[in-house]
């Protein structure tokens, strides 16, 4: 292929802001820049916008406005939800938490901290398909379980969990249920009532909104503790002057994503299927995670005999931005905890490629990616001693 295409295929990392979101922000930087806590007109106009945004965000989620806490993003919301449920439970002698082995680090590291403080965490197996089993969750629940936290959709392999069923189970047992829905919002239908969710985290920049802004939804009656002490913003649950421009951008982006969800999901899923089919023609490769129960835009592959970082660098040379679960891209020696959690061996997990597409992609773009990944994988295998051993039969192919 002689023409280079520039393709941003890392929408799970972050997205390009939509024009609608940018336009929604500008008035709150240029004109209505008042502090929503101030009583003069420009402050009160900001306050009105803030509460309007809260109502609109709540409507997208099926929540009440009073159940929305604006945060700095998904990580803060995850931290607040987990610590709130854990410390509230501990007061009643409940110090057990159920989660999964492949949560985002915002969840996992919070849980690790709680473990050091004496909490016990059960990490559910996510199996080869990247999905929890309800039976196993049922078995893991105990009298002293203070919280169940299971991500809505995985950030690396895109698998979508049976959230509604998990929520129902927790409700039956009266255990608070939190879900990290950062990858899900705007991409798959989410309704906190129908899905039996007590707490939910989301982040604007995953659906064409601005970075540094997110939401923690907390169902009425569920106790929430502060991470940040200070003023009385967010009903006293999150101090700090509200980032109103970002909140307005997030709200506009969320409404747009929710309104176009069905249409985008259909388009993107069809492109994803084309991409998966194309990449499966590369020998000794495999899709990570369930093909059916996954986010519309997520494709995550492993290729035997190569390492992910070199793959990414060469794809970047060809205009394609992607990511990998390779250790070398993270500065550690361990490959992705997600790929290890679904049972991929270390040596294969290094050769992973995540492509996350959005509705701006075309069939031509997908074909360009397939062709270039094929060429680069073939080239890297050609200089790989691991591949040579596999081809010569000295080592067994695992894929």
């Amino acid at each position, binding site marked *: 292929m002689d023409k280079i295409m520039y393709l941003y295929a890392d929408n799970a990392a972050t997205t390009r802001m939509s024009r609608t979101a940018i336009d929604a922000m500008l008035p709150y930087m240029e004109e209505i820049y008042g502090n929503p806590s101030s009583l003069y007109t420009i402050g009160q106009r900001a306050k009105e916008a803030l509460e309007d945004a809260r109502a609109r965000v709540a409507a997208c989620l099926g929540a009440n406005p009073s159940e929305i806490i604006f945060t700095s993003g998904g990580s803060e919301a995850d931290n607040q939800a987990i610590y709130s449920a854990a410390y509230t439970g501990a007061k009643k002698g409940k110090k057990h938490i159920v989660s999964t082995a492949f949560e985002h680090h915002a969840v996992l590291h919070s849980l690790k901290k709680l473990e050091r403080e004496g909490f016990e965490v059960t990490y559910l197996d996510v199996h080869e398909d990247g999905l929890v089993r309800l039976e196993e969750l049922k078995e893991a629940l105990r009298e002293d379980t203070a919280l169940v936290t299971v991500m809505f959709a995985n950030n690396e392999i895109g698998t979508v969990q049976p959230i509604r069923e998990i929520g129902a189970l927790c409700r039956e047992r009266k255990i608070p249920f939190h879900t990290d829905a950062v990858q899900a919002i705007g991409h798959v239908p989410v309704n906190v009532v129908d899905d039996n969710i007590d707490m939910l985290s989301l982040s604007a920049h995953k659906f064409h909104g601005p970075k540094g802004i997110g939401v923690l939804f907390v169902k009425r009656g569920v106790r929430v503790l502060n991470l940040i002490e200070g003023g009385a913003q967010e009903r006293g649950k999150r101090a700090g002057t509200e980032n109103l421009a970002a909140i307005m951008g997030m709200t506009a982006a969320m409404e747009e994503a929710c309104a176009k969800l069905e249409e985008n999901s259909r388009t993107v899923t069809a492109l994803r299927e084309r991409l998966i089919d194309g990449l499966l023609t590369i020998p000794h490769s495999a899709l990570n995670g369930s093909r059916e129960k996954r986010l519309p835009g997520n494709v995550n592959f492993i290729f035997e*005999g*190569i*390492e*992910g*970082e*070199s793959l990414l*660098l*060469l794809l*970047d*040379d060809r205009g394609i931005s992607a990511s990998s679960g*390779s*250790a*070398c*891209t993270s*500065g550690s*020696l*361990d*490959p992705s905890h997600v790929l290890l959690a679904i049972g991929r*061996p*270390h*040596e294969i997990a*290094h050769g992973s490629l995540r492509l996350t597409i959005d509705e701006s992609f075309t069939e031509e773009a997908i074909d360009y990616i397939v062709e270039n990944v094929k060429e680069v994988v073939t080239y890297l295998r*050609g*200089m*790989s*001693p*691991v*591949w*040579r051993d596999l081809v010569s039969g000295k080592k067994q192919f695992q894929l």
Partner: protein
Amino acid sequence: MALYSEKVMDHFRNPRNVGVIEDADGVGEVGNAKCGDIMTMYLKIRDERIEDVKFETFGCGSAIASSSMATELIKGRPVSEALQLTNKAVAEALDGLPAYKMHCSVLAEEAIKAALKDYYDKNGIEYDHSVLPDNLGCEECEVD
């Protein structure tokens, strides 16, 4: 990409001396697929000189660049000089590597030493075991 120097990117994009020497006089393989890096060095030695050298690498950009640079630094040089090659020299020749990628240059040094050791062992040549220890490249990375 700012992660790597231009020299690293050049050696990564256009690696020198990639391949296999079928009738090599010494072959050294170091690293561990579990850690994400394996390097194999092939040496052709004549009159105590590195007449030819080829490499194969499974690894990240800096691993490929380090192997490539290491082959350039020893090609045509006396064996005695190749023995002196340090990972620092490889990294410097590449205009530096990020701190957490320095182990790639260590692998390149060790791959060459392992190949020289293989050459000495095959030919029954005595050598300094402190320079060429038995456990070259056996360093395990910290994996659970």
